[in-house]
């Protein structure tokens, strides 16, 4: 791995994080009025507004405000909520306890479902069952995530009474069993939504590899089609799938927000929805930066992994 690539890629990541943070900061400042009037409400007196502006620091020039906020973020301080003064960082930490397990498990499950099914659909492309699998993928993509969640709840929670339909134990993971049970349907919902999209990529990547000349060379050496696919095809098909994972992170996070709303899980997504409703701009700013930052960082990690895995990319910076 040439250091040149690593340094350049991390530099690009830093630039991207700076760009996105600036974008969020500016977007939230394009206010018709100013932050204080929104928070203070219509009936606030000018003096109260002045105190508010001073407390929120919105009386100082924008670049200073940005520098202060960005500086804080770098040290892990995402600022204080405008409504109750609570530290955004603490709030985020509390909510991640739900959102992280939800997204990570869903991501793993999605790959576990999509890769075998996608490969099968490609291998059995001409057979009816292969076409059925890809049709299933096509259908899966068309189902809105939140509706999938509702329908799964109707079946497994309401009719079969196997799992809780909604909510998350107030005491969090104190009782892991109950907490996990309440995450089963949300994880399944998020995983199926992701798997449907991934399946199409895995299928097309596998199809492409199936026609590759080096598979024919492998068969010419004495391997059967199956053995050639396993020993030579798999790793080559994994390359495009790995690169698509980078893009999938963004939709995974969006899915998490929607699933948390559908199953009313107290995660980062549901908190963000409430903050947007309450116009708590500092919290919205912090949460949106965290989520988009996560997308960029994970995207970079996956890009580096992709370059490490493919010798052709390893040499060229």
């Amino acid at each position, binding site marked *: 791995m040439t250091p040149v690539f690593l340094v350049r890629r991390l530099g690009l990541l830093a630039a991207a994080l700076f760009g996105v943070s600036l974008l969020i900061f500016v977007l939230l400042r394009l206010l018709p009025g100013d932050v204080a009037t929104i928070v203070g409400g219509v009936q606030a007196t000018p003096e109260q507004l002045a105190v508010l502006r001073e407390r929120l620091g919105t009386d100082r020039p924008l670049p200073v405000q940005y520098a202060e906020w960005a500086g804080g973020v770098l040290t892990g301080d995402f600022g204080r909520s405008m409504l109750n003064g609570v530290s955004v960082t603490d709030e985020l930490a509390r909510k991640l306890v739900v959102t992280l397990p939800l997204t990570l498990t869903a991501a793993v499950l999605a790959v576990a479902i999509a890769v075998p099914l996608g490969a099968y659909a490609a291998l059995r492309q001409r057979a009816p069952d292969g076409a059925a699998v890809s049709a299933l993928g096509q259908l899966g993509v068309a189902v809105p995530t939140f509706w999938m969640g509702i329908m799964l709840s109707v079946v497994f929670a309401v009719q079969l009474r196997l799992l809780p339909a909604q909510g998350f134990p107030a005491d969090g993971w104190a009782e892991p069993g109950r907490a996990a049970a309440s995450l089963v349907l949300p994880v399944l919902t998020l995983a199926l939504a992701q798997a449907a999209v991934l399946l199409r990529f895995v299928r097309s990547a596998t199809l492409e590899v199936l026609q590759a*000349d*080096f598979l024919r*060379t492998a068969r*010419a050496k*004495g*391997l*059967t089609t199956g053995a050639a696919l396993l020993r030579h095809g798999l790793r*080559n098909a994994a390359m495009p799938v790995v690169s698509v994972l980078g893009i999938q992170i963004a939709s995974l996070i969006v899915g998490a927000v929607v699933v948390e709303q559908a199953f009313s899980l107290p995660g980062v997504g549901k908190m963000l929805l409430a903050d947007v409703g309450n116009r708590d701009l500092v919290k919205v700013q912090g949460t949106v930066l965290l989520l988009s930052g996560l997308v960029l960082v994970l995207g970079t990690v996956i890009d580096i992994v992709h370059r490490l895995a493919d*010798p052709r990319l390893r040499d060229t910076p």
Partner: protein
Amino acid sequence: MRLLEVEDLTVRFGDSTVVAGVRLSLGAGERLGLIGESGSGKTLTALAVAGLLPPGAAVTGSVRFEGSELLGRRERAIAPLRGAGIGFVFQEPLTALNPLMRIGAQIGEPLRIHRGLSRRAARGAAAELAARVGLPDPERIVRAYPHQLSGGQRQRVGIAIAIAARPALIVADEPTTALDVTVQAEILRLLTALVEEEGSALLFISHDLAVVAQVSRRLAVMRAGRVVEEGPTLDVLRDPREPYTRQLVAAARATSWNPQETPS
């Protein structure tokens, strides 16, 4: 009993017949050239002989290798013959090798499949084979990846793979078409030398009459899926029987280059 006997070989894709009633035979150590323009079915004939036709191809007729019939048998039954009985050299050195696997592993693979060699033993043998096909610095080449080699070097790797398990028949499908003329000359010399040393038969496919003539003792001319003429190379060139062959030889003479002739 001839090494390879092909009778009434017919290959169809859907309703279009691409190879119709081809008859060929090859004895041990013999060298047969298969010449034809693009679309003549020469490559598909070669693939059919090695059981490497793409899915969706309907094959009839008979291909007997060392007396046993290959057509119509399950892949598991004929796979052991591929690599050990029939070695294949492909046309595109760029895409014929696995881009993610080191050269040593790819050259050693036939030995691991057919001779049960361990990974380390196979890599050792691979270095020897790399040297044998004239690759510079075999120790480095064995650890390198395909994209780090030139076209000519990659084709030498292709040949090393084909001869690794010492097959009785080598099928070479336009092995030098994608190469420069100086590199082509070296590869052709290498191929004929190896075939002679090993005493293996060679089925050489090309659209270039001068190349095929240089390598093969007998020629079979293919057009639109049929073998239109077959015979010893010098006879076919000196007085071709079929009008199509005559036209092919004339065209090759017109655009090829000969020091004895004074340029027009």
